[in-house]
């Protein structure tokens, strides 16, 4: 499992690329890594899921926790979700709680619109 954090240089939005299985084993590692990112002043995160091959309820819990952490002055947007990952979010009936987009640009537009709305 791999995590890569990239500063997009745009309004403190960070792009986080994750790779592998987001199961109970990996989700705590992701949570720690995101906590580090959130300790900087960034509260806007785009999570790139293109290389995530699996998601379980443990992973979902971490995503909801990041959502909660960022909702005040930023936000979380998930991009490039594979069908198998989308399906789990739907089975858990949590699609209304997690913002999804197709591209980095689209995700940035969503996060910037949120900022302006503040």
């Amino acid at each position, binding site marked *: 499992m791999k995590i890569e954090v990239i500063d997009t240089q745009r309004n403190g939005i960070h792009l986080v690329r994750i790779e592998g*299985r987001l*199961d*109970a*084993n990996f989700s705590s590692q992701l949570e720690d890594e995101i906590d580090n990112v959130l300790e900087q002043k960034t509260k806007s995160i785009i999570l790139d899921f293109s290389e995530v091959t*699996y998601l*379980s*309820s*443990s992973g*979902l*819990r*971490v995503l*909801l*926790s*990041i*959502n*909660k*952490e960022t909702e005040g002055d930023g936000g979380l947007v998930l991009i490039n979700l594979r069908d*198998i990952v989308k*399906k*789990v979010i739907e*089975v*858990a*009936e*949590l699609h209304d*709680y997690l913002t999804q987009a197709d591209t980095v640009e689209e995700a940035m537009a969503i996060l910037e619109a949120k900022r302006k709305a503040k």
Partner: protein
Amino acid sequence: MDIGVRLREVRRLRGISLRNLAKKVGVSASFISQVEQNKCQPSLDTLRRISEALDVTTSYLLEPEGHEISPHKEAAEIRLPNRLKYLSTLADFLKGVCQKHGVPTKDIENILLAVDEASTNVIKYAYQVGPLNYFKVRVSFDRDLVQIDLLDQGRRFNPLENPPPDKKELAGGEEDLGMGIYVMKKVMDNIRYRYSPNEGNHLILIKRISQSKGNGQ
């Protein structure tokens, strides 16, 4: 490192002959045979190709501790340590066995999800991680049914008694094991739980596979 024994087990479980495996990997059958007898060791590159041909991870072939497969006709079993890092090993194993039995991809995904959730609960709640111990996962096939038995010796833990998830708490990032169980119930057709002091926890997951039998791809 006893890669030979593991390799032979997996190859037989997959029902692949020495010759066929050798052909897929691009080596001679006698070479594979020697590896299986631990008379020689494959290069990393060959090992990678072997694991691809058998649809397991290389670490599965290399990992010395923790799992045994005892294949018989319609059932396969794996024994895993109570550690979360083995969840991916379990997924590889289940996927391979189900593909071999022609279970369609959509059903395999559901089975993998349910068993992953159930096993996470075994490790986190029955064993509470704790000292090294093992749990068993057995897969059996009967007509259009796939049955997965999970057996562990941890503290008594009946997932079916857990209340449904509280979305508000979940949305607040709280730990809620109800969600995993909810997901498990949604993707399987039947779930049963038994407990006895001798056998420990015994969870049975049953999935009826879709009519159109795909090739598992």
